[in-house]
């Protein structure tokens, strides 16, 4: 284990926090769950906002979570350039908090989707994909109702021209613009994605490609 520790933010209704702890451990990273009422992220080298249904996803996914006390610290942490990763509901929270542009709307098929999809690495300079060859194909599970990424045409153009689309679906499952599965901020230290890398870290399940992404995250800490 490295001495660097990652904070895994837990809101009421979050449910992937333990999976993220396990996934990080499988690539040798220690992590600690941080309750949403905490405000102190000192001593952490990275932050993960995991999947689930923060505050029940009532109103709109992430809409209430962004007002949780911990989020001011997460924003400060991210703006200081530290690795900040939002997975699934965590991605929704980061967009609501203004750390990432755009929004996640209901899937085009108007149905919840839990299935394994193929994505390709679309940029190699984010905290999640640094060092992974462009075009590398990964099999990672998705698990969401609101994963249909959307943003204004200007934003999409900016994301594309600044090389900030991190992962792209090979067979778009949810209607996301340009098949976007994950994006980063301009500095590349904040990444949000709908697929769950921690769900592809176990040879026994037949899914291991998430290890590559989490290893890149580890190396970014």
């Amino acid at each position: 284990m490295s001495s660097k520790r990652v904070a895994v933010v837990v809101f009421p209704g979050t449910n992937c926090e333990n999976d993220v702890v396990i996934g990080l451990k499988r690539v040798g990273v220690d992590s600690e769950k941080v309750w949403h009422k905490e405000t102190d992220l000192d001593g952490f080298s990275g932050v993960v906002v995991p999947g689930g249904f923060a505050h029940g996803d009532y109103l709109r996914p992430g809409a209430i979570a962004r007002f949780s006390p911990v989020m001011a610290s997460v924003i400060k942490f991210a703006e200081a350039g530290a690795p900040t990763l939002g997975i699934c509901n965590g991605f929704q929270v980061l967009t609501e908090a203004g750390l990432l542009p755009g929004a996640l709307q209901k899937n085009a098929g108007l149905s919840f989707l839990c299935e394994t999809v193929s994505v390709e690495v679309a940029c190699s300079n984010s905290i999640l994909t640094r060092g992974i060859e462009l075009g590398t194909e990964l099999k990672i599970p998705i698990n969401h109702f609101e994963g249909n990424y959307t943003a204004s045409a200007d934003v999409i153009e900016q994301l594309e021209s600044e090389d900030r689309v991190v992962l792209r679906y090979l067979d778009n499952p949810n209607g996301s613009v340009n098949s976007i599965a994950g994006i980063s901020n301009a500095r590349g230290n904040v990444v949000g994605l709908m697929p769950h890398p921690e769900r592809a870290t176990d040879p026994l399940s037949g899914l291991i490609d998430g290890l590559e992404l989490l290893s890149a995250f580890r190396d970014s800490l």
Partner: protein
Amino acid sequence: MSSPLHIALGLTDTEYALLLDRLGRTPNSLELAMVAVMWSEHCSYKSSRIHLRSFPTTGEHVLMGPGENAGVIEVGDGVAIAIRMESHNHPSAIEPYQGAATGVGGILRDIFTVGARPIALLDSLWMGPLDQPRSNWVFKGVVRGISGYGNAVGVPTVGGEITFASTYISNPLVNVAAVGVTRADRLVRASASGVGNTVILIGSSTGRDGIGGVSVLASSGFNDAEGESKRPSVQVGDPFEEKKLIEACLELLDRKMVVGIQDLGGAGLSCATSETAANAKMGMDFYLDRVPLRELDMEPFEIMTSESQERMLAIVEPSRVEEVLAICRHWEVVASTVGVVREPEVGSDGRPVGMLRILDTEGGEVLGVVPAALLADEAPLYDRPSAPPADLESRRLTEPSFDVTGIDAELWLKEMLFDPSWIYSQYDHRLFLNTIVGPGADSALIRVASPEIGETEFAMALSADGNPRWCEVDPFWGSAATVVESALNVAVLGAQPKALVDCLNFGNPEHPVVMWQLKESIAGMTAACQALEVPVVGGNVSLYNEAGGTDIFPTPVVTTLGVRALPDELPKCTRARPGDQILIIGSDTSGLAGSFAAVELNGDRRGELFKCDLIESAKLVQFAISLSTGWREFGISAITNVSSGGIALCLAEMALEAGVGIALDPSDALTVDTIFCEAPNRIICATSTPDSVLEAASGMGIEAKVIGSVFGDRLTVPNLVDISLEGLIDARRRP
């Protein structure tokens, strides 16, 4: 008043007379309302309880059995698995989304009430054909309800089954099973022991939803247009509240902060207060003004019988109350002290009687006093008249037969193919990273692990199974075969069947034929469970599944829990390899009685159902386990068991799963009667070393033979079936 209050509340005149006798006085309306819900069929099992006593329920590994909130077994190293299954049929028929959602919520509370973290859900759905508009609406609502609640509460739905049949058009069935894990030394019982202990209500506020759910709704059938007016009796679920409740309760239980705990389900506070007091043989004072309400001006009887969801009742030592309230505050869950455990009183016969007293406020007016045991344990039990259907003998005399030249076996097969992936892709089935084999296989295989117990060396296989066609033709052998099929479903994943829970879904018990079906079914399950040495550790009975006077086909559904060592790699059990031989293992059987082909496709309920030899079935289960766990030495590339749809459907699915063709060898034995016969005590496997399997089978005295090979890109049964893989894929229905 047009009819007496007790009738309106669902009690018969005889039951009311019995109550007067036991109470020694006339009950007031609050007391009567509480008795009515607790003596309902749903809560008291009054029509089925005496028959259920025949189930084997014990075993060295059984830590908790029927009567507890959940069945619990120990699997080794102090690791315990809790399992429970329940129906939510009537609510789902009226309000599909909330009916199914609250079914999930209710079953999860049973699991964490015993101190186990819920880690898996399975659902067994029985719906009318989707070309019926109402069935379609019910089905979509049910799937969305399970998805909406299960995903948000954060428990993966790892398996289940779905059957469409006309018998469920007006009365669909929604059965849900939940499984949790804990340490054996962390188990908690629903008992209000310790005079002076504080009673704490945790979770949601109480509203008017679900009042009379168990009596008005779950314990009577449907008549035309009546369903709409019963909608207020359906509860409304809030998965977010339940998620917080799970975390709060598990922390309370893990830190041993409570002496007893009970979830609030059917009959609400009446049930939780009376059961915890009765279990401890204690009395209890309950203060109505302490209950957080979500509606104004609720009557005492409404508060005591509301089935508002996401609530728990905990019994706590006075010195721990502040800590308990603080833990609940941390998890943002409301908790209120609502009562106190009291000494039992001395009854007229000198024996202690725990009295449940309902007060408007502490030290205030006593609004009702009922012995807790009278509510919880002393409902009348009935041995209702039973009789086989009048046409049973004549039906059994003739086997179903069809104009063979007119039969297109391929058409039958295509009718049977169904792709359920669009259903289970709406359920989170990977949360907790435990899923090794997910939905769609013979059974789900998941790691036995949780944040609390960590990783273990065990995996469990779970399979939910039922077959109303078998049980309609012969409830005894049909139910026995259901148990055999379920045991084999976990065995082909290499797991030893260790326990079983059931939902017995039947029609109106006041119809003698239904009582006969129920008794026969219980007897058949008992025989099979005894032979296979699988104890029944819990379950429920859902009666009055009728509409317009017509009962549903008898539908006993079982969920079998199997346990095995954690495999060292993903089991290769569904990828038939080109060149491998196809073997059938188990006795030759033929006949279409009870089959999908006869009953569902041709409306023919005639004939004698196959009778699974239960001793041989037990041997077959053990053989399946050794084949599956020893897949390398036996050269196995695919293994499955025969069930609905017979050998034909089994081979079609094997071919589809691996994307390979299968060709059976020409044989006189291949007829419509054999390839669509559904006797489940048979295994089919693909192997590169057939001799090793044949030899091992022969050593155990089990019949086995090569019937074909994995070859090409077509499914071929000489003279009967010849379909390309594309044809099979096209035929898989997706509503």
